[in-house]
């Protein structure tokens, strides 16, 4: 008998949750973490076109999910370009902006907090962000860099409308608020499209992967504020200041996840990770600068009933000895590059294995190569069944459609336990 959408939804949720809890499922699922531009590329639609139309993007995501037999509704992995445009973001480049229509969005890393500004940031994070960081990352906030605003509590003063007039009428302020209004409008459209997509998919039996998103504190500092070069030099030139920045960013990241999960009554949180991978630092540096704040985030999720879904980007094989100390059956570990056998040996009884099918195979290989790779994974993890099939960071944009179909064929052929 064909299961109802409600039954399918419940089965898929149960399957994912069982695998995370290290209980053997009935079958190995195909659950891509996210999609960027694959759905529009295979439909012959440009990246710029879906950046301009959120509803078109989510329609194509739905079509791809159904066509390729995914078992949940992959997350939208693309920042909305119109929002970026409204803010005149300099920290991001996007198709339809100054990148070609078929390019993916790309991050522009820089030292948005300079080495000699760390103390100023720590003394007044919000004030420093308003006066210095925002004008650097987004053009519309340029006026904030030179207007000497009074304290924000002035807004509570009944006379503030008069007293604030000189500041709010300064050059560029009107354009700033107009830009923010445009940003709000696009953000509302984005949320409506995303909400509609996940709602429709849920009604058809496809769960949503996550709502909460949080960042390990070191990555926040290194990726977004100090850059790889800056944070690296901080390790040697001003380690105490680097640690102070990391410590300052742990509670907001935890609150971000818990707040999002509580507001939506969901229990999964995505945690993208970058700079803790092998090669990026020694074990000693990892223990000092990365692991304490990362593990604090993981434990905070678990203590609040949230399943952390860390995406271990890069090769975390050298860090398996740390991952092995995390509580068993609580973490949905999504892997990029990793020594599969070592993972099984060191972490197989601690966390499930998710991802790791190479993008190179999906983009340039054959269906048979893809099936062989999935079979290898199932042969390795099939005894416990604690395996979820996906590529390294969701479905790669340049994947050949026949290779994505091969993922599904492989789980159907080899993944029934």
């Amino acid at each position, binding site marked *: 008998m064909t299961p109802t959408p409600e039954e399918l939804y419940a089965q898929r949720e149960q399957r994912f949750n069982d695998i995370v809890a290290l209980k053997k499922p009935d079958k190995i699922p195909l659950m891509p973490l996210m999609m960027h531009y694959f759905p529009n590329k295979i439909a012959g639609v440009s990246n710029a076109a879906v950046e301009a139309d959120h509803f078109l993007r989510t329609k194509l995501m739905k079509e791809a999910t159904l066509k390729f037999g995914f078992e949940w509704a992959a997350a939208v992995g693309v920042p909305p370009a119109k929002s970026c445009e409204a803010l005149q973001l300099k920290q991001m480049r996007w198709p339809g902006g100054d990148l070609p229509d078929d390019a993916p969005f790309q991050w522009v890393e820089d030292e948005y907090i300079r080495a000699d500004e760390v103390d100023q940031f720590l003394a007044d994070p919000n004030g420093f962000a308003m006066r210095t960081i925002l004008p650097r990352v987004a053009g519309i906030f340029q006026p904030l860099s030179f207007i000497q605003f009074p304290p924000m509590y002035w807004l509570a003063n009944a006379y503030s409308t008069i007293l604030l007039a000189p500041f709010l009428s300064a050059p560029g302020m009107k354009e700033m608020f107009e830009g923010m209004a445009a940003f709000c409008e696009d953000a509302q459209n984005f949320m409506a499209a995303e909400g509609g997509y996940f709602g429709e998919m849920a009604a058809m039996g496809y769960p949503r992967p996550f709502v909460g998103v949080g960042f390990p504190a070191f990555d926040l500092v290194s990726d977004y504020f100090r850059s790889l*070069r800056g944070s690296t030099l901080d390790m040697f030139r001003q380690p105490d200041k680097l640690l102070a920045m990391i410590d300052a960013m742990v509670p907001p990241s935890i609150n971000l996840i818990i707040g999002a999960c509580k507001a939506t009554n969901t229990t999964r949180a995505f945690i993208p990770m970058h700079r803790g991978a092998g090669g990026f630092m020694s074990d000693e540096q990892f223990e000092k600068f990365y692991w304490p704040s990362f593990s604090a985030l993981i434990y905070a999720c678990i203590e609040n009933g949230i399943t952390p879904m860390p995406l271990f980007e890069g090769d975390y094989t050298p860090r398996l000895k740390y991952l092995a100390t995390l509580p068993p059956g609580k973490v949905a570990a999504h892997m990029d590059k990793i020594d599969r056998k070592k993972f099984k040996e060191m972490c197989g009884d601690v966390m499930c294995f998710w991802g790791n099918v190479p993008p190179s195979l999906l983009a340039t290989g054959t269906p048979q190569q893809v099936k062989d790779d999935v079979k290898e994974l199932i042969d390795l993890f099939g005894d416990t069944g604690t395996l979820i099939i996906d590529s390294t960071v969701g479905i790669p944009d*340049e994947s050949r459609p026949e290779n994505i179909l091969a993922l599904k064929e492989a789980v159907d052929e080899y993944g029934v336990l």
Partner: protein
Amino acid sequence: MSNELADAILAMDEDGALKIVKDRLDAGEAPEAVLDDARSAMTTLGDRFACEEVFIPELIMGGEIMKGIAAELKPRLTADDAAEKRGTVVVGTVHGDIHDIGKDVVVMMLEVSGYDVHDLGIDVPVETFVAAVKEKSPAVVALSGLLTLAFDSMKDTVEGIAAAGLRDQVKIMIGGSPVDQQVCAYSGADGWGRDATAALAFAAEWTTGGAA
């Protein structure tokens, strides 16, 4: 005396290393000798990176220390000193991809290892690579990429160099996080790697400069 400088660099003692350089120059020592010692320390650093004894932070910090030393020495070096290179390498992030972190580490390590490096930057069109190969006659071309779209861009670039009749004159390496043997075969490159160690090993093998 020379060990002191190498020890300071390898210990990431930036202030100590610069003080030793100044002291040696003040004592009348030839800047070439000081530069040689600093370079040998960077070669050791590269070896330790290859053995996974040190990692990217030490490469970046070592590069910074080396920059400081080079700035101190540059006014006193003759043009001939700067001309002694182990081979020419053209480097760039392939078209469509604007990422530069990995490329920059490779460029830095090649430079401190004594190669004549021409960094074409990011999002480099095929014709720019071809023009650089014609103009600079490198032994090695290094193509970098972080995105999966780089697979096709790398293939385009290798084919572009071949179409210009230059393929036999250069060895081509590809590098970046998603790159592997599959991509190497697909692109037609001669070798692949995920970090600066592999780039240094290929550069040493493919130039007359000997081991890195």
